[in-house]
């Protein structure tokens, strides 16, 4: 953990903290949706610095954590039973499927490769014309252009042996699902800066209107987070609910239009199951009919039973802000990063792993 004096701009951080302490008059729950922000809040020790009235809730914004069990099983099935070369981002490898993880499948000889970019998977497909190559395309809106582009590049190269297993999730429908959930009580949101780099901020206006909840687009560095929290707090304390943009140095209102165009060339919006949560309407992307040849679920006959989630894992309640990781009976005991029961303990952006690695929050929360 770092100390405030080590922040890039300690004076500014101090000033925001002071202002936060001065402004707050009652308890509020603020959710950061993005796992990168959770990671930064915990790793930089910001949670301990905030006044106790401010309860940060760590939302479902880690794509690795919300990828359904069943899709991990499918990825393993493709690698093992269909003999495909499976490309994946590194964080996915240790996430438990119903029987094993990708890493365990790899140890048993499946050809599973950790890749930096889906575009690298296209290269592998071009180099191995006699093999099928599948990229495990997880991600939020930030990652969708790259995954879409990989399909478009494969098409340009005339490749017939490339497809993606798409598990794309979208932030605004998740915010809506959380607001509609009666158990979760979120007063305001930090929206993820990099997601908005692609999608812009316009999608958040209807949500603010409908739920009268402040949403502030925020970056991921400590000073950004403190400023974002202060902006939400000021709205809450004065009874306002607006879309504000803390991260305007990077995020334009309309987002990146070229990227959006690329996304909607290949993908269309669909209902999607979030691991630990439920099916959220219109909360993900699937490949359009036009590009069906690049959709691994349509290309391969995947004969698998729908596996059940591990019932001991309370990831859903954590992502909705009903419980904190240390309230899970397995936390740090049956469930550790070396031996995770649920996905939030795996990815460095998952709330359980972040608490396990960087925080000694139990005392703080209980005091």
């Amino acid at each position, binding site marked *: 953990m770092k100390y405030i004096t080590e922040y*890039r701009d300690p004076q500014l951080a101090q000033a925001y903290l002071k202002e936060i302490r001065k402004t707050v008059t009652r308890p509020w729950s603020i959710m950061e949706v*993005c*796992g*990168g922000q959770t990671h*930064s809040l915990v*790793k930089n020790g910001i949670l301990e610095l905030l006044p106790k009235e401010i309860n940060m809730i760590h939302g479902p*914004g*880690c*794509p*690795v954590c919300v990828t359904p069990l069943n899709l991990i099983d499918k990825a393993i099935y493709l690698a093992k039973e269909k003999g495909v070369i499976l490309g994946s*981002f*590194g*964080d996915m490898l240790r996430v438990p499927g119903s029987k094993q993880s990708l890493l365990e499948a790899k140890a048993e000889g499946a050809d599973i490769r*950790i*890749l*930096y*970019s*889906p*575009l*690298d998977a296209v290269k592998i497909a071009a180099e191995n014309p006699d093999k099928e190559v599948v990229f495990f395309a997880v*991600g*939020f809106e*930030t*990652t969708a*252009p*790259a995954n879409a*582009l990989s399909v478009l*590049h494969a098409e*340009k*190269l005339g490749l017939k042996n490339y497809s993606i297993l798409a598990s794309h999730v979208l932030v605004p429908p998740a915010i809506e699902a959380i607001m509609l959930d009666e158990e979760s009580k979120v007063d305001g949101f930090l929206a*993820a800066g*990099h*997601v908005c*780099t*692609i999608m812009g901020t316009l999608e958040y206006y209807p949500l603010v209107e409908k739920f009268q909840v402040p949403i502030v687009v925020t970056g*991921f*560095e400590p000073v950004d987070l403190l400023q974002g929290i202060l902006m939400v707090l000021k709205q809450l304390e004065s009874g306002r609910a607006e879309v504000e943009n803390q991260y305007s*140095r*990077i995020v334009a209102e309309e987002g*990146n239009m*070229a*990227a959006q165009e*690329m996304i909607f060339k290949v993908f269309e919006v669909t209902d999607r199951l979030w691991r630990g949560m439920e099916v959220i309407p219109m909360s993900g992307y699937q490949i359009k009919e036009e590009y069906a040849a690049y959709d691994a679920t349509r290309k391969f006959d995947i004969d698998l039973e729908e596996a059940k989630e591990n019932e001991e894992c309370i990831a859903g309640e954590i992502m909705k802000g009903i419980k904190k990781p240390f309230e899970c009976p397995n936390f740090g005991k049956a469930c550790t990063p070396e031996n995770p029961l649920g996905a939030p303990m795996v*990815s*460095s*952006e998952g709330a359980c792993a972040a608490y396990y690695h960087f925080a000694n929050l139990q005392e703080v929360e209980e005091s």
Partner: protein
Amino acid sequence: MCLAIPGKIKSIEMKFDGTVRMAQIDFGGITKEASLEMIPKAQVGDYVLVHVGVAISIVNEEEAKRTFRYLEEMGEIEEELNIQDRLPDRSEYRE
């Protein structure tokens, strides 16, 4: 896996029969290829935010350098760029 990392465009090359702009991008001494299709205006020398092999926006030099230093201190660069070796001069930042 959701962060975008700032880097500097070293060179640009047209690929796929001249239809796609790909760049060599320098991330503090490590070079990776990235697509410029999402930011058609980007030129050699520009700083860009890159996420999983795709440049998603142009940023100014000061912002790029500041963000890079922050990510480097936090030990996020290797993970995002999927490089196994450590960057030089970094050991003191690791847990």
